[in-house]
């Protein structure tokens, strides 16, 4: 009796691999359906220290998350939604600026000045901040720390 040759084994193995690939590629058989995107907010806080915060601007660059809305802050002086640059947004860059409503008392200390609403297709909301300018009531620039806090809705 003739035993199968190496070529036969190789062909059988190849057929098995192809079959496996074919089965794996069949539509509707993927056990992991695409993950639904998640929505989250990024709270932007400016620490004005002892200064009265009158105006601010900064850039937030989002890695993969998409900006879907820009909200003002909680302080009455910065309740109106900040302005953004639509051209920059096409590159995932959110350039923001706001002036205080001068009818309101200007805040100091740590101020929530804006809330960015984002959708994260992959669940990640990586971001970097730069270009911070803060101005006090007398129109002078001062150095301010900025913190961005992520809030995810689970």
């Amino acid at each position, binding site marked *: 009796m003739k035993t199968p040759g190496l070529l036969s084994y190789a062909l059988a193995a190849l057929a098995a691999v192809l079959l496996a690939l074919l089965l794996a590629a069949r539509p509707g058989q993927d056990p992991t359906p695409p993950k639904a995107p998640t929505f989250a907010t990024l709270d932007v806080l400016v620490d004005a220290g002892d200064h009265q915060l009158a105006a601010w601007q900064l850039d937030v660059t989002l890695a993969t998350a998409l900006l879907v*809305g820009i909200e003002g802050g909680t302080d009455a002086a910065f*309740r109106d*939604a900040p302005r953004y640059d639509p051209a920059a947004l096409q590159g995932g860059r959110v350039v923001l600026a706001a002036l205080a409503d001068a009818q309101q008392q200007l805040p100091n200390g740590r101020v929530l000045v804006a809330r960015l609403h984002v*959708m994260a297709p992959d669940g990640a909301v990586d971001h970097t901040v730069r270009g911070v300018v803060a101005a006090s009531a007398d129109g002078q620039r001062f150095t301010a720390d900025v913190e961005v806090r992520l809030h995810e809705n689970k």
Partner: protein
Amino acid sequence: MKASTIRDLVAAAVLVGLVVACAGSEGSTPASYEARGESTGDPATNPLAGAFFNDGSDGDIRARTDNYFVTDLGAVIDLNGFGQGTATFDFGAFRHEGKDGADESVDELVVVERADGTKANYGPDRIAALRAKVDGKEFGQPLPLQHTDVRGKVALNVSSVTVTQTYTNPFAEKIEAVYVFPLPQDAAVSDFVMVIGERRIRGVVREREEAQRIYQQAKAQGYRASLMSQERPNVFTQSVANIEPQSRIDVETTYFQSLPWRDGAFEMVVPTVVGPRFNPPGSEGGIGAVAAGKEGTSGQSVEVAYRTPEAAADGPAIDIAVELAAGLPLGTIDCPSHTVTIRRTDERHATVALQKGVEVPNRDFVLRFAPKERGAGGAVSVYRDADSGEGWFSMSIQPPLEQLDQKPQAREMVFVVDCSGSMSGEPLAACKRAMRRCLGRLGEGDTFAVLRFSDDASALDPRPLPATPENVRRGLAYVDALDTGGGTMMERGILAALQPPIEAGRRRIVTFMTDGFIGNERDILRAVHEHVGDARIFSFGVGTSVNRYLLERMADLGRGVAAFVDIGDSGERQVDELFTRLERPALADLRIDWGGASVHCVEPQRLPDLFVGRPLLVHGRVHGALPRSVTVHGTVGATPQQFTLPVAAADEHPAIQKLWARARIRSLADAMAYVATPDELRDEIRELALAHGLTSEFTSFLAVDSSEVTAGEHGTTVVQPAPTPRGVRYETTVSGGGR
């Protein structure tokens, strides 16, 4: 199940109400009626599935002849056995508002209830999803749009307008509100804010499909969201998702607009309603017009639902106020469309507001104003980028044509009258008045033709006739006999006007009189582009809510101008202006010499003829300085002419950049109707709109409140119906509205 409950409630109740109403008449006890509802859901998951009805013969369901307000719910009567569903009708006590306004308690009410026993939560201050029609008037239909507020600021020739739409949810479950509404066709929509209580969320511009995807995701996950998409340059759809019961969401939209100078005044138009459009058989990409409650039946990709004129009187109102600051002492201020209060704060400033405070949004708001210095019709505005030296400008050009003499060219005057169903009544009457005036103004050497179109096109005579007194009499008799009916096959009217050969030495002048209520604008513009040749088109919009986008673009393609006649208007002024324009010199074959300045990307790319009283508004880009003067070359008749005009130091305004982008987008979008490779244009439109933060056919405004998930499922969609425009017959224009 929940997702469709409200839709079913509405659908069922609308039908119940409508049919009940057929039997109800003032002062009489309803003798017989039928109440039925239908739903398309799955009976296994939707307890309202299946048909349910009561033919009224046993008196189980009563209708009253007046308004319905729910105050209480009483006994439940199970109507099992009707159809395959388990829907129940709830007969409860309700308040009956008598003729004298006094309340009286009555004992019958039809309310649809879910079969699982959970009643829709109608409280004393809520209106049930029951609509009744009594003596032709509808009552009780809950609607999400409560109010529209329009605030405009005008400085010289640039207006900035903020439109605030207030949506509430009168239902017991969450809803998505959808509303199709108009904006001016050249509005550069630049800002979009969703307001929830004191929170203001500014929207962002994204590609249309991406914005739609994000919106749907947000809606499905329970986030409040708003989406505004452009359906036509002057028609938009607003969607607001996850409005919770008894809560409110406002959407603020801000746009800029260059105001045109029209025959002695700047003109600002705020459209308030999209007129009911006709779509040729077989089309799917049009704008359908259906009766409220018949949503989804037009077969068109966009649909407007209409309330009857009687019902609309009780519907959401609009409030309009405009601040004027023309930069120079103000002269006349006139609002031919509405009764307004004009308050002049000083010689340069005024405010204009509706006298009643609010009005039914059923016609365009038209405001005309002029500086005291007559003839001032232009402005130069610029916005310049500091680093690159690149600038954007807007320039109004008006050579002193009135100083020239011109021997009128022999003309073939072609008058085309839209006799479709939407023109019935007052619009056709206005057309006839204008036509009589036109025929009376014909000159000895003119020839003329009168055409009508609806489903087909026909003419006074197969060939143009010399304008002899006898022929003019024939023309008048033909016009008097015109009647309306049928669809708006506008393309047939266009071909009938533009295709026939023309006698050598004559200039064909075509005047279209129409409301422009068609949904296939691009087909029409393509037909005009292909057949216009050397003819000139002067479009006459007739009605209170004309499709100005179509009329303006037809005139642009035909190198003429558009004029608009309200239904109450004699049309004499507009006709006289037309003939005055035709009898005065027009500067044709225009070319602008920018005096060595590095000017590029000028819009419009194809410069129109210049007429007295209609300055040319040009948007463009410039590298470096603007010229101190420009020279306009053209021909008057066969004679070359040129004018050198000084360029004033310009007002600087960042909106100019957006206005240029909007003009450019409009030009590209128009070209999509007739170029072989529209994909490139599509990409350019998209890039321009995204870079400048503007809505377009391919970009939408989106705002999502991702800070909070609202409870429950996202509910169902409630379409906000619009009123039929004033003067337009609901029965002849709205599908399911009586035809």
